[in-house]
Structures are given as C-alpha cells and as structure tokens.
C-alpha cells in the first residue's frame, strides 16, 4: 500500500478547527480530534494525487506505518481513494449490484438540491404566482408526456439485457401524460393543452433523456431512475411531505383542485406499477460493467440531476419573468 498514491476525493470538503478536522463527503461527516487531527492536517496537502504514501511519510517525517494506518481508515470511510483505482477499461469490472449501491449513494446526495429548490417553498407558502403554479402542472404534463419520445427511443435502441425492462417500461407508462392532461383540461381546452409548448428547460430534460436513450440503454435507465426516485416513494415521511404539499397548494390556489387530483392519480399509478424495484432488477441482470461504462453511466446520472434542477429553475425563473400561461405556439400573426 505504501507505493500507492492517495487522493482526497474531489467532492470532499475539509473544515479545520483548533484540535479538530472535519471532512464532509456526500451525506457523511467524519471528525478527527487530538493527535489524529494534527496528523491529518499535515497530511492533507499531500493527498493531491501526486505523491505515494511512503513519499508523504518522508515529507512529514512520520513513521510510514502511522501514515498508512490513517490513510486506510480514511479510505474505509470513503473520503480517500488511491490513483491505482481504474480510470480506463483496463481496470476491474463492477457488478450491476455494486453499481446499484454506488448509484444510490450519489443520487440520494444529488437529490438534496432538488428537494431544497426554492420553488417548493414559494408554492407551499402561497408566494408563487399563478403562472408558476399552472406552469408547474403544464411542465409536469410535458415531462411525463415525453415518455412517448425517450421511453420509445430507449426500447427501440435497447441492448438485449435491457430490452424486456425498457419495453415494459414504455408500455406501462406511455399513457401517463393523459392523467395530467385530464387535470389541465379542467382549466383549458383539450386541444390547447395538447399543442402547448414546454419551457426550454423542460424540453432540455426530455431531449437529454432522448439522447441518452438512443446511445446507452443502461446509462439512460440509471439516469431515469434518479427521476423515478422523486416520484416513487413508499416511505411514510416522504408521502406525508407530498400530502402536505398538495394540501398547501389547495389552500393557496383553490383553482388547482383538479390539477392536484391528477398529481395524486399519477403518483398512485406509478406506485401501483411497482417501478420502485425495477432498477434493482436491471442491475441484477446486466453483465459486469467496465470502469468506462461506470463513468459514462454515472455522468449521465449526474447530468440528469442537473437537468432536473434546470427543470425546476425554468418553472421558477421563466414563468416568473414571462408569466404567459398556457404557452401557445407562435403563428404568423401572434408575433
């Protein structure tokens, strides 16, 4: 191990304090105190992926065994990695279930920003404008209706292992947009709902799904799973938060009754399909992944999280600045 080159994980943040060092990494926090903290503080500048452990021990004038022991503990805690870890296809393979665990760990961290988006607060406190509230329903409709595009593309371009999952997924979900359409049709003519334009940010999310679905079946579903995780919840705490959200919407925006009914109907429809376990089943059935495949899939997932934030930003900021809703298409006279 002494010949290996340590690197503090790039997304870890270090907060030194007198007699104590705290490292935050994803949802975890590690604190060292006393002599351990003192040693860590001296080692940290060298955990930059440039020097081997033995070289670091020489530089800080510490016994190599002591440096190695602390590095091992940090590695076990997940905050330190070694550059001998694979960066190309030549490294060891990762099983689908190992990928599942990796996916869960990062996604739960990335979704924190989604759940903390200011749009939710505005909607539950009644501070959101009419355009933002109705716009939210329209954009959800467009996103769900996008299944006709990305789920179909995913099924049509699926690898043999993924095809049964992706075919079933499309067949079970393609009509879900109609649930939202029904809610919106209580306020607007059905034809107008059908021909309304999504925001560019919603189009961005659908197009990103389309592009991934066309080139990487597993990566596409890993990204889609992040989106599904915000819809499928059997967790009691989360269900209660969702119910509170709907209650607040009805309190501040009574005209949304039929819209809220459609949101609830869609959540129920998703939950009844048992999609919560589909990704786990997929991960069980895929062949082991190369490091390059793992990186590609996880980059899709991270980008999906960013697109989901963009989706919420669009509703918040765009409808805030351009409050026309519904967004009807242009013609030669409208401009």
């Amino acid at each position, binding site marked *: 191990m002494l010949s290996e080159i340590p*690197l503090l*994980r*790039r*997304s870890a943040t270090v907060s030194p304090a007198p007699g104590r060092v705290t490292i935050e990494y994803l949802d975890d926090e590690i604190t060292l105190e006393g002599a351990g903290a003192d040693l860590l503080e001296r080692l940290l500048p060298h955990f930059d*992926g440039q020097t081997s452990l033995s070289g670091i021990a020489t530089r800080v004038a510490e016994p190599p065994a002591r440096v190695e022991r602390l590095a091992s503990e940090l590695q076990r805690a997940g905050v330190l*990695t070694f550059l001998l*870890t*694979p*960066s190309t296809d030549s490294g060891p393979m990762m099983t689908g279930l190992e990928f599942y665990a*990796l996916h869960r760990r*990062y996604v739960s961290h990335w979704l924190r920003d989604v759940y903390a988006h200011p749009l939710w607060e505005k909607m539950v406190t009644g501070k959101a404008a009419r355009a933002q509230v109705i716009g939210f329903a329209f954009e959800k409709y467009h996103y769900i209706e996008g299944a006709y595009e990305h789920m179909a593309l995913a099924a049509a371009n699926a690898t043999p292992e993924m095809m049964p999952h992706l075919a079933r997924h499309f067949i079970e979900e393609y009509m879900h947009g109609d649930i939202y359409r029904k809610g919106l*049709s*209580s*306020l*607007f*003519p059905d034809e*107008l709902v059908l021909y309304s*334009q999504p*925001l*560019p*940010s919603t*189009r*961005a999310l659908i*197009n*990103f799904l*389309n*592009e991934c679905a066309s080139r990487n079946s597993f990566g596409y579903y890993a990204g889609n799973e992040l989106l599904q995780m915000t819809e499928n919840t059997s967790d009691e705490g989360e269900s209660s938060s969702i119910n509170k959200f709907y209650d607040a919407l009805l309190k501040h925006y009574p005209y949304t009754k039929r819209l809220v009914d459609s949101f609830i109907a869609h959540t129920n429809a998703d939950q009844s399909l048992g999609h919560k376990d589909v990704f786990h089943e997929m991960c069980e059935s895929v062949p082991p992944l190369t*490091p390059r495949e*793992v*990186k590609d899939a*996880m*980059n899709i997932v*991270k*980008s999906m999280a*960013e*697109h989901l*934030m*963009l989706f919420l*930003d*669009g509703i918040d*900021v*765009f409808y805030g600045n*351009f409050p*026309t809703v*519904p967004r*009807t*298409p*242009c*013609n*030669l*006279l*409208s*401009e």
Partner: protein
Amino acid sequence: MTQANLHAYSPRRVYSVTPCDGALAFQVRECVIELGPAEATTYAQLAEWLPTVRSVDELCTAVGMDEAKLTRFAAHLGAAGLLYKKADLPAELSGEAFHKAFSEILPSWLSEAFSHPYWQKMMSGLGSKRLYTGWLIELYHYTRNANRHMPLSCAHSREKAIKGLHAKHYAEEWDHYHFFAKALTALGYTRAAIAESVPLPMTLALSNFMRQAAREDILAYSICSAVLEGTTTDRSSYNPFYEACAKLYDVPQEAIRPIYAHLDLDVQYQHSDLFHEVLCKVPSISAEHASRVLDYGHQLVEHIWLWTENIDNYYSNPKSALPRRPFDPFLE
C-alpha cells in the same frame, strides 16, 4: 354578439410592459400601445381568459362589462395590435414572403433573447472576470457542439439544393471552436482542460434542441440557425460588450481578439443570409407549416434566455468549478 366573436381573437406577443405617466405601455413587435389603468386591467383579464374554458358570463362579471361592450373592446385591442383575429391567418405564403415576415420579427426576438439581466450586469461593472470566462467557455462548447447538429441537418434533409447549402455552412463552421479555445488559453486555461470540460446543461440543451430541429424539419432547423447567426451580423451590437469586459474586468485583448476574428469570419461568409437562400428554394409554405417553423425560431430565442440564466446562475457562485470537469465516481 356571441361567444364565438370573443373567441375569434388571440393575444399577440407583448415584449415588455412599462409604466408610463399613469398608463401602461405595451411593446408589441411594431409599436408601443398605451392603455389607461382600467383598460390595462380589462385587457389583462381578457388575455388570461381567452385560452381558458371559463364562460363568457364569468369574464363579463369579472370585468364589469356586458358581452357586446367587451367584444367592441376586443375589436379596439385588435386594431391597436394587442390581439389578432385567428381567421386572418393566410392559408399559405411564398418562401420569400415568409422570409420577409421573419426579418420583421427577428429584431424583437433578439431583444427578447438578450433581455436577461446578465448583460446589464456585465456592462455596468457588476459582473466579473469569472462571469466573462464562464460565458466564453460555454460559447466554446456551444460552437464545438455545432458538430452535433449541423451535419445532422444534412443527413435528414431531402432537398438536394437545401442540403447543399447546409453542407457548405457546416464545412465553413465546423472548427470555429478553436477561436474560443484560443481566447480561453489567453485567460490561463490549458487546451487539455478546455477540451475535457463539460458544458452546462443549458449549453447542451441548445445543441440538443438543434438536433431535434435537424431531425424534424429542415426549415425549422434553418430558422434556428438564422436566429443564432442573427446575433453576429453587426459589429456594433457585440463590440461594446467585449470592450466593456476588457476594461471593467481586466480581460486581456488576447482573450477578445479571437472572438472578433470569429465574428468577422461569420460576416465574411454571410451566414446570416443562409435562411433567405434556403427559403428562395421553397415556392410555397402552408400557414400551418410556417407557424411550426416560426415556433421553432421562438423556442430558440427562449433557449438563449435560459442559457444566459444558467451561465449567470452557475458562474456567479465562486464555489462552482471552472471549467466543469466530468464526474469521476472513482475520484469524486
């Protein structure tokens, strides 16, 4: 008057609403229309009601007018330019006539696309070198991503003459991202770091939207290209931004000269005329098709606005990585 009369109208796009001596000034494409406070409120209620399933009676009660009076009011708004009659849409028009209509609309669209506060912030000294660099790196990706959509437009085009025009455009543009890489190296970034970086989601969205247009309809793709090229036709429209950034944020001339070289090359190639050349090869276009094409153009305008928002939002945060590295689950 019957309900059908009111429903015969639709609202026109209003680009801005500003207070003006107790009245409100509504900017539509060709003029400014002033409405007094009561008229403005009635107009807003009417415009909100028009696309809904709510009854005429409900609207009449809300605005305190009977249907006949309200219909006369709608006719006045139509004559002023705030509403249009759906029946007045032409059944079809020639490609050249469509280009003329587009040329009249484009300035308003461009002012909407560049109405994001980012530009005012940068010009007034409230921006930063970091925000300029962020804009530049996203422009690098956007230009490099032309390789994701320009050839696709040729692949999906069925008309030989039109696909030839787009192929020539691609041949002239494909490697222009080097201009931006050169500008970024002058700001201290290595070519390797620039090449490995990942664009913001909205930068990627721009090229994904162009790919969507390229697959669906060559005229829709062409109008999007025309909107983008429309931003580079006149040096006087872009020089002040770069000059202000150089002065206010200590941006070296070496980080600006390549941008000018690129813009000058675009002018030299006359890429902004491409849409006209394409439409000259289209004898007639149905109103429905023209609307779909126009709609693509306006969606691109909105993409540019949200792209700017994404750049402003991300690069304003000093903690955001610059440039953005790809995610590595083995190292992060």
